[in-house]
């Protein structure tokens, strides 16, 4: 019998001991091309209380929509120096913040195109396995045809789209709501 994937277990409350060394809140150095964004949000539990012990990871393509990975075989130039990975822990108010660039559109199933997005892993005490979600960007016309968003009930899609701060260009707000009527959409794949 072939082996089965190891069972997931919670990250627990003390992951900082292990995770701080690889933490990365600022994904793009100055020489990386792309539109700068600051993505801020909070993680809230079923009581609406902030989650002070979560860790958020993001993975994204560069501004041309190419991933820094050998299985991305798109004929697009590779930007050296942009890995596309970020990891931060939430603070005592459940807040997190990433500084990065907006990714380009990336290919989807059957010749479709996915609107610019980040994929997100959420770990915390109380979660026996990670939650996976996505962050899309406000105002992108590609979202109407995005093959993943189309699988989400229309009234819940807004939980996946960051909100622009009208007073602050490039500043985006996106919260993770674990439970309730405003619950963030989480994915299974």
């Amino acid at each position, binding site marked *: 019998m072939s082996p089965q994937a190891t069972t997931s277990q919670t990250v627990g409350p003390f992951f900082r001991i292990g995770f701080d*060394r690889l933490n990365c809140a600022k994904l793009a150095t100055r020489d990386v091309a792309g539109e700068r964004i600051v993505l801020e949000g909070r993680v809230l*539990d079923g009581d609406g209380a902030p989650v002070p012990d979560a860790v958020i990871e993001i*993975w994204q393509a560069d501004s041309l929509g190419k991933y820094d990975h050998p*299985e991305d*075989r798109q004929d697009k130039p590779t930007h050296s120096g942009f890995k596309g990975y970020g990891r931060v822990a939430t603070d005592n108010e459940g807040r997190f913040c990433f500084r990065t660039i907006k990714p380009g559109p990336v290919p989807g199933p059957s010749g479709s195109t996915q609107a610019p997005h980040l994929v997100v892993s959420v770990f915390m005490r109380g979660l026996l*396995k990670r939650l996976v979600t996505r962050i899309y960007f406000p105002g992108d016309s590609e979202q109407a045809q995005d*093959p993943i968003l189309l699988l989400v009930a229309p009234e819940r899609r807004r939980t996946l789209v960051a909100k622009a701060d009208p007073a602050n260009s490039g500043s985006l707000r996106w919260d993770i709501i674990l439970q309730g009527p405003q619950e963030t959409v989480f994915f299974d794949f």
Partner: protein
Amino acid sequence: MPITENIRGYRRPARGTQPEYLHPSYVSSIKRAPTKALVAIPQTLSEITGPQFTPNDIGLAITDLTRQHQQSPMGERIIVAGRVLDEDARPVPRTLVELWQANAAGRYLHPLDQHDAPLDPNFTGFGSALTDDEGRYRFVTIKPGCYPWRNHNNAWRPAHIHFSLFGPAFATRLVTQMYFPGDPLLASDPIYNCTADADARQRLIAHFDWDATIPETALGYRFDIILRGREETPMEHRN
């Protein structure tokens, strides 16, 4: 230009071998588990790619947790070694393994850990390394202590070491815990018991290993970690 090749995704877990989000006996899951059904999606380029780390990214490997300070930490020195494989038993080479743990007294070097047990000035409790070309990893550490927690009356966590792995893709990311054989606390631990499949739970327990044991120095434990395997054929998309 969209790529024309089809995506070969990663397999879904066998039934019962992964926990559900809501596991009420683990009290912290009650306010944190999602209440709405997850949305099933096909794997795309975003899920079959993922961060790959080089020695430059992670700095020097920390594989001997007993030599991070001036003196040796208190406790029983052990070797924890194993392989990272996929579900076809193929090694996962050069992938990042991070681990963290309590000291021999059952106390974490963390401000939130209020357990009334001593910190050890000679123990941090963190290691990280890339697997070798055959997917092997090996750490020298001390056996972590058991410790109480407030999940229920007289609750104690069995001795465990936390592991974090990335594998080749976003889809293969895994955080888990390794336990020790014969620990009497396993039977009553809601975290260990969160998974329905008894064999899957059993695989979280390391094997005592004479081959990894170093005479006069340290007992050896073997803990192999299996990441999701590849689908044999490209995914069909029926959206």
